[in-house]
């Protein structure tokens, strides 16, 4: 185990930073905010931590804490500026934000090390600390998915009007998405630079967005478990594929495409469907034994699911179609 750990240390570390990066884009997505600003925060975080350690000789943990705080504040400011944009327009604004960060990194002269980037960022930061930090953050994110807060977040995403009418301050939630995304991205970047000891302009480009999105979509976009699955797969897959040799890139592309096509809810969705299917079969057997009805009202696919989500999903699936066509909106207020 220890040998395996040592030989694959970089992959283990990359899985953790990949997970946080994926979460930094998944959390806003879960609130219906199509923001890729997490990738930019990752860049800022990597450089900020590097500069704090290298130029100001700070220790690892204070540097990371300061970085995450800083990127959270930047997230708040960015959110205040652009949160009123919608859909892909918001996405493009955040992509622009990310790319501007890269350009600043290249043009930062001495401070950012220009096209070479920063290197030799060596501290006493350990993989153990990294693991603890990641798990702590993961627990916080997981908490936002369950209970009252989870239902509210789902409602803000699926039906902002409904949420507003229920007295939820939608704008505040959307701003919170930017702040959390900023902190997560900054943390990911900061930790990565500490274990990797280097960061350059090429490490923080458009590719980060693609990677994070791939992890989320293929893993599953509605739960941290999906992000975890995605982070594990897309960190380790390229390494496993090296045995294929020269056509590994092609196989990688095929896998991503196939996953996107055949797993609309990601791998986590498939796992969920699997467990539900098992549950349903069991229940059907019981029902058959009793001679009761076999399928319940909404197709029997959602037993024991939290109720608000079911309500919202039902509302979305059985909308008032006429209203739809009149207004051109797919809203489904009950």
């Amino acid at each position: 185990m220890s040998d395996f750990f040592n030989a694959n240390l970089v992959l283990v570390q990359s899985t953790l930073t990949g997970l946080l990066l994926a979460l930094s884009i998944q959390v806003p997505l879960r609130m219906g905010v199509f923001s890729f600003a997490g990738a930019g925060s990752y860049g800022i975080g990597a450089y900020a931590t590097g500069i704090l350690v290298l130029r100001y000789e700070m220790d690892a943990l204070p540097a990371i804490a300061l970085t995450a705080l800083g990127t959270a504040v930047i997230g708040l400011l960015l959110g205040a500026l652009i949160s009123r944009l919608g859909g892909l327009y918001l996405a493009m604004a955040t992509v622009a934000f990310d790319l501007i960060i890269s350009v600043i990194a290249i043009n930062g002269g001495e401070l950012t090390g220009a096209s070479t980037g920063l290197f030799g960022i060596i501290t006493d930061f350990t993989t153990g600390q990294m693991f603890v930090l990641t798990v702590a953050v993961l627990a916080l994110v997981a908490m936002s998915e369950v209970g009252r807060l989870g239902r509210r977040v789902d409602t803000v995403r699926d039906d902002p009007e409904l949420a507003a009418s229920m007295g939820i301050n939608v704008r505040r939630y959307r701003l919170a998405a930017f702040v959390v995304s900023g902190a997560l991205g900054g943390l990911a970047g900061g930790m990565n630079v500490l274990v990797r000891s280097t960061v350059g302009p090429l490490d923080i480009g458009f590719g980060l967005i693609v990677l994070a999105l791939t992890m989320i979509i293929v893993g599953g976009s509605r739960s941290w478990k999906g992000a975890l699955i995605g982070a594990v797969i897309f960190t380790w897959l390229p390494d496993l594929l090296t045995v294929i040799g020269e056509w590994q890139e092609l196989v990688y592309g095929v896998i991503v495409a196939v996953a996107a096509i055949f797993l609309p809810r990601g791998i986590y969705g498939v796992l969920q469907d699997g467990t539900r299917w098992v549950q349903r079969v069991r229940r059907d057997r019981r029902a058959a034994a009793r001679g009761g009805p076999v399928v319940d009202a909404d197709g029997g696919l959602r037993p024991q699911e939290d109720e608000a989500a079911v309500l919202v999903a039902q509302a979305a699936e059985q909308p008032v179609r006429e209203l739809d066509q009149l207004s051109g909106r797919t809203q489904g207020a009950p």
Partner: protein
Amino acid sequence: MQDLVSVVTLGSVYLLFALGMSITWGTIDILNFAHGSVFMFSAFSASLVLERLTLGLVPVLLIGVVVGALMSVLIQVVAFEQIIKRARDRRTAEMQILIGGIGVAIIPLAIAQHHTQSNPFGLNASSFTVESISLGGLRITNIQVLTVLLALALWAAAAVWLRRSRQGLALRAIGVDAQTAALMGVDRRRLALVTMAVAGGMAGLSGVLFTFSLGAITPESGDTLLVKAFACIILGGVGSMLGVAFGAYLLAAAEVVILTQTNGSWVEAVSFGLIFLVLLVRPAGVFGRKEVRRT
């Protein structure tokens, strides 16, 4: 003045490339991230053919168009149609298509990288040669003239097609409300295939033209253009034909001005800063219609 020539030619390249993306995105809701790959692979196919045959300009352009159209249709059938069939709603479909496109795009890229080892490839084996023309002190090449003319002609043709023809009407109807359009007898599948073929053909055409104009491109060249095209479309407003042209030339102008007025390295920061600002002032792009989807 020479800078103006640069703006117009660069803007035309952006326009030709972004046009296809804009049409599919604005009508059938497909933001095709494999567009850059189609662009590159069409030029790459043309260079492969030229290794064996000596051809003039027109056949090479045709190869580009045909390869581009075929690839796009193939991607539509194999990937995007399947995604739309399986997706729960429009929004998840949008995301899946984005990722599916990214995945599919890797495949031609890997083939071209493998063949060229990421070395540049060009079309100089063609019997057509790029020559420069001098017009009252301004220099412009024959291929640049052709690019500008084709970009504007195709742009105008596409705009008229969308506005005037029955197909165009049907397409716009899909863009506004797919369900009603289907109820009114629009064959969505066939129209989507036609649209993808047109978009792919334009990508292929721009690939060949751009490669002639630059002398050589590498397999990775398409990705760079992709981000810029994305920017052009957003700048102008999704679904607006006027918008995409505006976006293309504005982006080109911004880049050229900054490249020539400063020492260059801030070009992208300013271009993307511009996009940022435009979006703040006009949240749906300069010529964008009001967002009809929920936020």
